[in-house]
């Protein structure tokens, strides 16, 4: 398991996600300071999350109801819908290949650091204390930014949240999607799914 510093440094050095006017240096500084001052929060031991640290989850928990608006929590209980969506986000981001995964890490680390939040168009307040209006303003400012990296950040965040929620059956009532047919698997030799038969292989 890499420490947050190790996770942050290789990318900040190369400055993948350059937040334009703020400059690579500011971001590198912000991301590194966030790490050094303990403003990032490593994964808890035995966490059910594979990628999203407590700070990242707080960030998404603030964004999710704003991005999803009246479709959330749909048919589900609010906390249950939030948990399901966070776990789906965690799974998706964990599955991204290195380049995109590291860009996500860097984005989250930077946005967890108040001075970067201000520079990025959000507010000094932590994400959980930010009003929905302020979060919406932040999203709109990134969407309409002249800086390609901010627009990419907007598209990435809204896409990730969208696909992780609207693929959930709890959202179907909100979209009017009647859902797929029910699939009844057909067992073969008493099995309905594939198990390994590695022991039968000829190893040379």
């Amino acid at each position, binding site marked *: 398991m890499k420490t947050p510093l190790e996770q942050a440094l*290789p990318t900040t050095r190369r400055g993948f996600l350059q937040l334009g006017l703020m400059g690579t240096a500011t971001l590198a500084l912000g991301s590194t300071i966030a790490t050094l001052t303990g403003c990032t929060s490593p994964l808890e031991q035995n966490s059910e999350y594979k990628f999203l640290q407590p700070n990242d989850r707080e960030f998404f928990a603030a964004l999710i109801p*704003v*991005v999803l*608006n*009246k*479709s959330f929590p749909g048919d589900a209980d609010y906390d249950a819908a939030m948990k399901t969506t966070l776990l*789906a986000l965690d799974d*998706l981001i*964990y*599955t*991204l*290949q*290195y*380049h*995109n995964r*590291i*860009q996500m890490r860097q984005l989250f680390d930077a946005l967890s650091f108040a001075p970067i939040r201000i520079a990025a168009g959000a507010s000094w307040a932590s994400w959980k204390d930010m009003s929905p209006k302020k979060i*919406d303003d932040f*999203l709109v400012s990134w969407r309409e930014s002249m800086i*390609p990296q901010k*627009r*990419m950040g*907007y*598209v*990435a965040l*809204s*896409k*990730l*949240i*969208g*696909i*992780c*929620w*609207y*693929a*959930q059956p709890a959202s*179907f009532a*909100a*979209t*009017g*999607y*009647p859902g*797929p*047919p*029910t*699939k*009844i*698997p*057909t067992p*073969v*030799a008493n*099995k309905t*799914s*594939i198990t*390994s*038969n*590695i022991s*039968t*292989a000829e*190893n040379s």
Partner: protein
Amino acid sequence: MAKKVFEEIRGITDPILEGISNGWVTLDAGDYTENSTLEADVAIIGTGAGGGTTAEILAKAGLKVLLIEEGPLKSSNDFKMDERQAYKDLYQENAGRMNKDGSMSILQGRCVGGTTVINWTSSFRTPEQTLQYWGDKFSTKGVSKDEMAPWFAKMEERLNIAPWALPANENNAVLSRGADALDIPWKVIPRNVAGCWNLGFCGTGCPTNAKQSMLVTTIPSAMDEGSQLLYSARAERLIMDDKKVTGIEVTALDKNYRPTGITVTVKATTVVLAAGGINGPAMMLRSKAPDPKGLVGKRTFFHPTIFSFASFEQEINPYYGAPQSIYSDHFQWDTVDGPVGYKLEVPPLHPGLTSVLLMGHGEAQFDELNKLPNLSSMIALLRDGFNEDSQGGSIELADDGSAIIDYPINDYLWEGVKRTHLSMAELQFAAGAKAVRPAHTEAKWETSWEDSKAAINKLDYSASRALVGSAHVMGGMTMGEDLDQCVVGSDGKYHYLDNLYVIDGSVFPTSIGANPQLSIYGMSCRLATGLAEKLTGKKLS
């Protein structure tokens, strides 16, 4: 209120489970607890359109074949038409694959059967103009229209490819109706299906095995001949001795697609690379395979795909019915190598994917998704690679050796994007849409073609504003005899290694100008037959 067309699917036999129960050798690399070695006459890296086609031909010629697949082995019992499960099990990066600057989302398969398991079944022969261009510009031999025709015919028969015989669903009918109103020619799409239920879930793995993907056709046939399948197994690098490949170092992956720490070494007399235009070149770069002109991973093409949404009074139910059945090439071949041409088609709209395509958030996006049953979309596939301003992307390696796809959308392509927005909006209004919005973060819903046209003409076309997607990965290992541009010979042999063959869509010198699966099948059938004849000394065709 929209209703389900089918409530339940049952009684579908699972050919993979049956095969395993009948003694197929399928090996989950994640289960190995110590480093191991496997041997074969031919090792094939990748099990998609290229690898699957090649495996059947080589196995039937009597060669001992080992298939290596990075993704998991899933089959019809697992295909529940559930976006969550499908993206996780069957797609590269959980359907979240993007290019380097995030301006293009890429849908690509990652499972036994590759993208053929999750594609929308559209099957076109490579257009004559494209084949001609390859011969003229890259000295690719044996790929003229007449030379390729028998290979396409063979694969059309093998995979039951024929124009869709049922009426188009409402989503596709928007394209034909709009085209008729504007006097634009359109045609019915040929599909590789047998006994299709017209459900609409091709993209989440066919639940009825009607789609004639590699998973239910060539791979079972190769397995019946005694081939072995190693899955959850990433070909990390080639092991080379001078100009010969002696083996492949394979990384075993766990259920989360992370290395287990175990390496399987595959030894083979001949190696076929069929891992597609992203992962294939990345494996070559990791291997530091000889490439004197630095061409590996260059000229990667994607058919950058542009979206336009339309809302209708009547229900469209864009998630049900054969996802693609109508197309128009009206804007495709005005010139071969001038401003970018494009094919018009229709995508299915399931809610998870649709939320991504709509590119928005908050109340505005809720209002759009809230009317999903009345929503329709059209797509335009840009034919990249035919102009000096369209040289394609390049594959780079990240620190951990994984691929980075450097494919910036340049002004040549943006000019085309804007034209596609205009043509699609005009078609959608002509088909009776009450409002249209191109997939662009600044675009609003407009209620007339005139307003829409004026609005599109004012939009700023740049990265992460207009939506660009791709479901077609091509190029990266250019085929032809011109050594200044090509790394693979017209017989599929890698120019700089004696026993490495590349047989998949990565050999295409440009994009195709049509959904590429039949192009890959036909080309692979030709190359694999030649290879089988060379290896066995017997005449097959």
